[in-house]
């Protein structure tokens, strides 16, 4: 049991899975000698050598496309895309191939792939280093999409992702890479993909979030002094609707919080499902506290863009009063 940051927890999960299974290998830009621009792969190149921790050419489609081939031919590649803003060049390989090979071949060829991607805003970074594209991939059948909000979940979910027989996009909220530490068991354990976590229980309102926003929710809930149940999705696709439904049937009110733009963000899917499943239990319209429908601004204004405790708090007050 050690007290680790999210970066350290991921690093530990990678080490343990690579020790355990020599089909597991890492590839990406600067993941080798440099240990990744966030140092997530620190020490792995030295420990496992250049064949298993590979610095690739600067080409995201190449990184994912070759990873698909590696996976189809028996390995367990873990490609890293340096920032979510650079998933774009790999979008085609992810959506037309990684997501489709199993069903296209009726199971003959599969793509057990874990794509690691730092995600989200709040770190004062340049353009295209602060976006939240999870809904894009949640709209792509064949993929699983994961985003931990704590070091413990990060390690457990990453191990599940690596062992998953299907392609998983593993989003790492960079704003909390080192924001806090948590007890993380040294021994191996898994957190199942597809199961949300009740962060705290409550009776009045259900709040649903994921990634770095979960902390903003915590702050808002504490300030509000109300009895609010906070659900950390942990997995975006497939969505754990049972946990959400049970909570909303109890509270009758729901607020969803995410960094991505509101329109067609994943909050829209959750809100629709809640209405579909809990229509007669709803006492107020489900509220979405999200990024605005604009491009993520450069860092001088990024905190104005991201949902914070103040905006969340207002939504809490409003839905409670409705």
């Amino acid at each position: 049991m050690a007290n680790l940051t999210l970066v350290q927890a991921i690093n530990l999960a990678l080490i343990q899975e690579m020790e355990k299974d020599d089909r597991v290998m890492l590839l990406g830009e600067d993941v080798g000698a440099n240990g990744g621009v966030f140092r997530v792969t620190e020490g792995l190149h030295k420990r496992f050598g250049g064949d298993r921790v590979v610095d690739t050419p600067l080409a995201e489609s190449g990184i994912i496309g070759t990873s698909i081939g590696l996976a189809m031919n028996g390995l367990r590649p873990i490609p890293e895309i340096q920032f979510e803003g650079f998933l774009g060049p790999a979008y085609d390989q992810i959506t037309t191939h990684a997501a489709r090979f199993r069903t296209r071949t009726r199971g003959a060829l599969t793509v057990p792939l874990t794509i690691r991607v730092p995600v989200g805003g709040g770190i004062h970074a340049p353009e295209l280093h602060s976006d939240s594209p999870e809904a894009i991939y949640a709209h792509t059948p064949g993929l699983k999409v994961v985003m931990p909000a704590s070091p413990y979940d990060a390690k457990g979910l990453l191990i599940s992702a690596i062992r998953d027989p299907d392609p998983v996009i593993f989003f790492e909220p960079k704003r909390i890479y080192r924001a806090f530490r948590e007890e993380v068991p040294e021994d191996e354990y898994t957190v199942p993909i597809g199961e949300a976590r009740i962060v705290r229980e409550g009776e009045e309102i259900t709040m649903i979030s994921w990634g770095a926003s979960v902390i903003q929710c915590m702050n808002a809930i504490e300030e509000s002094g109300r009895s609010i149940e906070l659900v950390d999705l942990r997995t975006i696709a497939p969505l754990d609707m049972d946990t959400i439904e049970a909570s909303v049937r109890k509270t009758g009110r729901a607020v969803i919080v995410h960094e991505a733009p509101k329109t067609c963000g994943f909050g829209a899917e959750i809100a629709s499902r809640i209405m579909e499943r809990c229509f007669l239990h709803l006492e107020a319209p489900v509220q979405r506290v999200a990024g605005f429908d604009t491009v993520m601004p450069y860092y001088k204004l990024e905190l104005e863009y991201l949902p914070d405790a103040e905006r969340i708090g207002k939504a809490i007050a409003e839905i409670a009063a409705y």
Partner: protein
Amino acid sequence: MPVKPAFETTIDHVSILDENGGFDEKLGKGLISDNDIVTLYEHMSVCRHLDEVAFKLQRSGRMGTYPENRGQEATSLGAAYALRKTDWLVSCYRENCGLFWHGLPIEYVLLHWMGDERGNKIPDGVNVTPLAIPIGTQMLHATGIAWANKYRGDDNIACTFFGDGATSEGDFHEAANFAANLDIPVIFFCQNNGWAISVPTKIQCSAPTIAQRGIAYGMDCVQVDGNDIFAVVRVVRDAAERARTHNRPTFVEALTYRLGDHTTADDARRYRDADEVEKWHKRDPLIRIRKYMADRNLWDDSREDALSEKTKAEVSAAVKRAEEIVAPEFADFFDSMYASMPAELRTQRGTRRTSSLGQDPSQLDGSNVSYPNTQGVNA
């Protein structure tokens, strides 16, 4: 010296059996035995006949869009012949001949074009990937597949096929660049057939050769007469050797021609001249081999007649197998989405519905639903 050469190079063009029957003994001797050339010719004839039949099937509504391979048989077949069964062929959609040689049953290709995913359910032990529809994307898979072989330390390689147009896609560049810089044993086999649907090769590559694309990566590259199966076998053997022993990729440009339309949805007369097609008919790889065999008393009309019977039988048997397959079911497109099916997907599959009241009729209990037709919710 203020101006000094930083780089110099030459690219070879290789030809062994030319369109007039000329044969280069030095390069060609012993390359393909008399028995094998006959077998290869017979194999090509099957593919040629398949095109005819498939075309008719499409026209009579028994198959969807189909791309004829006619005229390009020697390219993928020569490559497949030069490789091992344990090597991987990562193809586009104009390589029937090589895929069949490598072990893919004919009906798989038919099923694919009949709109049936079971045509992609490659049998165990056949190292081919399914036909690739998105142009240029499959070379990256070939590079990854070959990389995995190298990672495991076996000496199997991959050979990926693509057209002249495909070399315009960024994915081609990234695949070749990965292979060259990371020393991956893959062969990039370009079938330059002069056209990308209606767009001539010069719009895809205005350089004197497409082969020189490989120079950008410091890759060995060569241009070959793609309608000359001997020359194709020669260059692919050399490339395979280079890959197996040194993990070095090779770029092969095979000059060939699509004698038919791009697909059954296309009408090539809209954009190309009849005499161009004429010129290439004379270079038909089958005619060339037939002449080669005849000159050596390996072939005559009676054998040709016997073959065409055999060919007809083989193709119609394949068509029969493809058409007699049980119709696919609704559930089929759910069942291979994931190794284990997520809850929402299971519900959609079970109820055939995405709408919540259709998925959970219990929400309607008490109220009486009058459906527009006789079928129930789960029909």
